[in-house]
């Protein structure tokens, strides 16, 4: 696929990858209507990339909320503002930590498995076999995984945020003794549905889901059909996803906030 890339310098190589990735996105989008015939496959992928990622997302969300609450409590107690702990935990999780950490975990948990799976399917001729059985691999293999990632990310992010709030409450209220009513009322007085939950949680995580899924399927689909090629593609999925998530986070924050 990328035979002529050769040993260019890193800038042209990266630009070429981004360009190929964009073209690949167009091919996926063109294949989406055809993939509707394989809706069950999308559901199955949603199970693998979404439901199977729940454990890690929930545990990590819980600990992020707990540590955030702990840190904020100690800093805010300097100013006598521990009542604001709930507010700051919620704002920090909704606007930044929720979408970003979920996306990074998602890239590590689901993105890599998508890349490795598609890469190995190509290496073992399964992709070619599908083409020869007149099944379009873009519609049957790639598009369902892309869609599943796109759908799963916001849902996972919501679960992450809910667990984060729960963890923050656990440490702040149950352990450190912030007043329960203060914790919630300060939070509810400050958190705005559109600004924080729709813009912060939903749009960001949708964008991250699209980017991570796209990178994962692209790397898998274009991986050289060797064990080294698949291993390298998997690594690149994590590296490229992480960079893309954090860069996109800045851009989205600048536009949405």
């Amino acid at each position, binding site marked *: 696929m990328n035979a002529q890339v050769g040993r260019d310098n890193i800038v042209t190589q990266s630009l070429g990858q981004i360009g190929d990735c964009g073209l690949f996105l167009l091919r996926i989008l063109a294949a989406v209507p055809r993939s509707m015939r*394989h809706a069950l496959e999308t559901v199955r992928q949603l199970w693998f990339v979404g439901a199977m990622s729940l454990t890690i997302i929930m545990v990590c969300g819980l600990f992020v909320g707990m540590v955030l609450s702990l840190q904020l409590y100690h800093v805010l107690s300097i100013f006598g503002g521990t009542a604001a702990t709930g507010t700051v935990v919620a704002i920090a999780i909704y606007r930044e930590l929720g979408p970003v950490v979920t996306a990074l975990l998602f890239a590590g948990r689901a993105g890599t498995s998508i890349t490795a799976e598609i890469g190995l399917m190509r290496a073992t001729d399964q992709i070619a076999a599908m083409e020869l059985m007149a099944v379009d691999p873009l519609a049957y293999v790639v598009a369902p995984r892309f869609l599943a990632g796109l759908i799963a990310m916001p849902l996972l992010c919501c679960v992450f945020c809910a667990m984060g709030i729960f963890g923050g409450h656990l440490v702040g209220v149950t352990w450190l003794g912030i007043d329960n009513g203060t914790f919630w009322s300060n939070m509810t007085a400050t958190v705005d549905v559109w600004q924080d939950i729709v813009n912060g949680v939903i749009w960001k995580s949708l964008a991250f889901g699209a980017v991570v899924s796209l990178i994962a399927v692209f790397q898998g689909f274009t991986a050289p059909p060797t064990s080294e090629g698949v291993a390298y593609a998997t690594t690149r999925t994590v590296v490229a996803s992480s960079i893309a998530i954090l860069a996109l986070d800045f851009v989205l924050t600048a536009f949405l906030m």
Partner: protein
Amino acid sequence: MTMPVPNTPDEQTLVRIRGLTTVLSGKKVFDGLDLDIPRGKVTAIMGPSGTGKTTLLKHITGQMRGDAGEVRVDGRNVPELGREQLYALRERIGYLFQNSALLTDFDVFENVAFPLRQHTRLPEVLIRNIVLTKLQAVGLRGAAALEPSELSGGMARRVALARAIVFDPMLILYDEPFVGLDPIALNQVLKLIRTLNQTLGITSVLVAHELEAIKQVADHVYLIANGKVVAQGDPKTIADDGSPWTRQFFGGEADGPVPFQYPAGDYAEALGFSRSSP
């Protein structure tokens, strides 16, 4: 070189290749290749490694397109087909991969049922009957519930064969079907190829190196080298046609028209001895 070819399906010939020329990364894989595959027969394509036998199969299925020439399958020129037509054509072609290429997501039954599920809306009972019939034909009905990872190489190839014939195709392409099989499995696959050809009349194309095996099933053999057909004929007599290609290939000689040395620069120079030095 290219002869006029009728646009309608030919009664005798299923696949007709004329003047096929393909250049892959600077190397001419095919150089005006002409080849006919007759209907209802088993045709074997042989040749030294790297002469593009698998590439030829990819041209027939439309996975690759040549730079010039025609590949007509059942009258239609494959390189000119659009995606829908190409997929319609592929539904009528079975393809057996060298490594079987079973879908690791599914068990044996679902692997064989896969094309049916993708292209038809048959009731579950009917799908089950068709799949079990095909599995019975390859002798693996009892293995329906196994995962692909639990199969031996020979079994996997037979499952792949069951999958390839699930739609009763007009043409089956076998890519190196005998590689890595023990003598028992090899004979089982041989028997299957023969049975499928004789009972169902499926046209078969074999890419293989094993002359002994080919002698048992093939009706016609093409020997390809240097991007051209260098010899063809009955498998039992082709080895004796006297050309240097057949003598080297079937005689197993190390050097001949296919050189022992891969093309390289001057040896003395590569070792650092200058030719002009005294």
